[in-house]
């Protein structure tokens, strides 16, 4: 009786059946409230399903170019080669731009010197690489003059052929194309950023 007569506030602080009963009631209420809360607050994934997730490609797909079957890729991508006399892989990277430091009050430059590096790795046979078989084109379709750091080279499994092509690039979209026997084999797309 004494426990009952202690009132709610004291029951929490007291001892014995009264406290236990009060605590039990509170726990039951909490459980009910919690259950209701769970149902209301169930996350979207449980109620509405898991949103499918796009996976990244396990490994980059390297397209193969052969005579009459050219490939278009992004700058930096490799193109596998099957040229009859040789097989290999060619990659173009860049442009590595020679940007001046910004000057206060001036807009970014409209063009910049830069270099593109072309590397040909032969896995079988030999493959010739001649800078004259490359073409740089700006987004208006104009040819972009360039110079190469060497006249020509032949790649074989023991020796890569590497060129550096230097040019002045306008801001915007450009392409680098490589042809063999007058027919395109690979084209790399890229954007020139000058800000």
């Amino acid at each position: 009786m004494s426990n009952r007569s202690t009132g709610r506030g004291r029951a929490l602080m007291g001892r014995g059946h009264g406290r236990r009963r009060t605590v039990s009631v509170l726990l039951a209420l909490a459980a009910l409230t919690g259950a209701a809360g769970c149902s209301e607050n169930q996350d979207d994934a449980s109620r509405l399903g898991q949103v499918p997730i796009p996976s990244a490609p396990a490994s980059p797909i390297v397209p193969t170019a052969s005579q009459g079957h050219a490939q278009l890729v992004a700058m930096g991508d490799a193109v596998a080669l099957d040229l009859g006399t040789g097989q290999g892989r060619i990659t173009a990277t860049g442009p590595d731009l020679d940007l001046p430091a910004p000057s206060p009050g001036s807009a970014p430059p409209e063009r910049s010197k830069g270099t593109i590096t072309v590397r040909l790795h032969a896995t079988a046979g030999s493959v010739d690489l001649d800078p004259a078989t490359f073409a740089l084109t700006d987004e208006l379709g104009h040819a972009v003059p360039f110079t190469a750091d060497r006249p020509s080279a032949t790649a074989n499994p023991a020796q890569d052929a590497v060129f550096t092509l230097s040019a002045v690039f306008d801001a915007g979209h450009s392409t680098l194309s490589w042809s063999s026997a007058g027919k395109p084999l690979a084209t790399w797309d890229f954007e020139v950023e000058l800000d």
Partner: protein
Amino acid sequence: MSFMKLRGIRQSRTSARRLYRVAALSSAGVLAAAGLMASSGADQAAASAHSFHPPKIKHVWLFVLENKSYEASFTGLNQNSYLWKTLPQYGELLRQYYGTGHYSLDNYISLASGQAPAPDTQADCPQYKNVSPGTPAADGQVHATSGCVYPRSVQTLFNQLDQKQVGWKAYMQDMGNTPGRENPYGCGIPGDPSGNGVPDPGGATAQDQYVAKHNPTAWFHSVMDNPKDCARVAPLNGLPASAGHPAVSGLAQDLKSEKTTPAFSWITPNNCSDAHDSTCKGDNGSGDPNNHQGGLYASDLFLQKWIPQIMASPAFQDGGLIDITFDEAFPPYKLYGNSTGDYTGNSDPKLNTPTDTAQSVVACCNELPGPNTSQPGDQAFGQDTTPGGGITGSVLISRYIKPGTISDQPYNHYSWLRSMEDLFHITRGGADGHGHLGYAGTPGLRPFGPDVYNNPSGRAMQPAALGSNGVYSATSGQPQDQPAEIAPDFTGASAAQDSLKPGAGK
């Protein structure tokens, strides 16, 4: 760091819903009793025009990439297949999303604060110094004749989220890699902007490709002077504990549970992974130390790494929204048509021809130039004397967005800011008194509407078939001629209101 502050927004939503129900019932009862249901006329029309409510998105991740036009990113010119092909299969492509200026920094400023471009922000702030005079101008703008660090009076989305007790974080890849170059515990600022400030704060290095001009928190005293805010600006991969500083968690760690995931996350990749540098100064994320290829090649690598991680997180699955956008559009943007009255003042006469890279449509949404420049677009790339940063496009992914859809509704950075403010129920203050900062408060500016949130049930849907929505048919027709599943036809003076009516996007 716990982001349980989200509870606040949920409570306010619940309270708002309760109030709405009570108000609706009361109104209906009173109107019915008085027999006046048909007499509310114009008021009802006005109310229904604004009756669209965005879905219950609880977490947002914004990726800001660099300097690419819609054509460069979404038509196959660069073979960046993850952004171009894969991600639009899982979400929506906004084909008419616009930057607000040239060059980079002014766009970040617009996104964060609704401030219009100013001369030094257009020039990417060659001298990191305070805005002058910094006095108030109309429409929530400030006068910024020079300088680019805004006074404390200029509020940002980050301040608004603080005031709503909504958790946010800004992740800056590489920030703090080189000690002393920028302050990773101080919002990534490159130094003291007072007086003559800091010369040339931009430019990546091989070890540290963070650039301050792509960090929106480093340009506002209202954020950078508040240590609590700067504690929310973290390197993408976090920081270990150091003398006087506890460890700072990075994005991957924060994604592990919903409690540690901020409601709003701004993600700035470094100057390589955001597609800015064509050849990166340092690592491009490929794992090959000799591979420094940048551009959209590098941003694809970045997105391939982070988008699946975010989408696999409990926070994303529980009502998340990913937004991948660009700050501004660099050429080419010819597919939207050349102007017939191109700018003819270019120093290079080759650009002053009818076939140049200019276009007449480089801005949208009635973008105003603001008080500091008449040319937000800086007449970059020979463009016309119109404002804007060109069409970049954006991809949004959420369970509340149907996979593989397209919207041709024009949006720009100010629309984006308004959309975020609405999404997080920011309804007070701002330029319009309704929670919209600067030009985000422009009357009639349309936030993301039912054309974007076109799966209101939120029920998970499978990705669309590759190429099923015509996104990549750049070679078969002009973008404006390609079919858009969601192509609202809202024109005229009431366009902004009409487009928000229930069902308008269907």
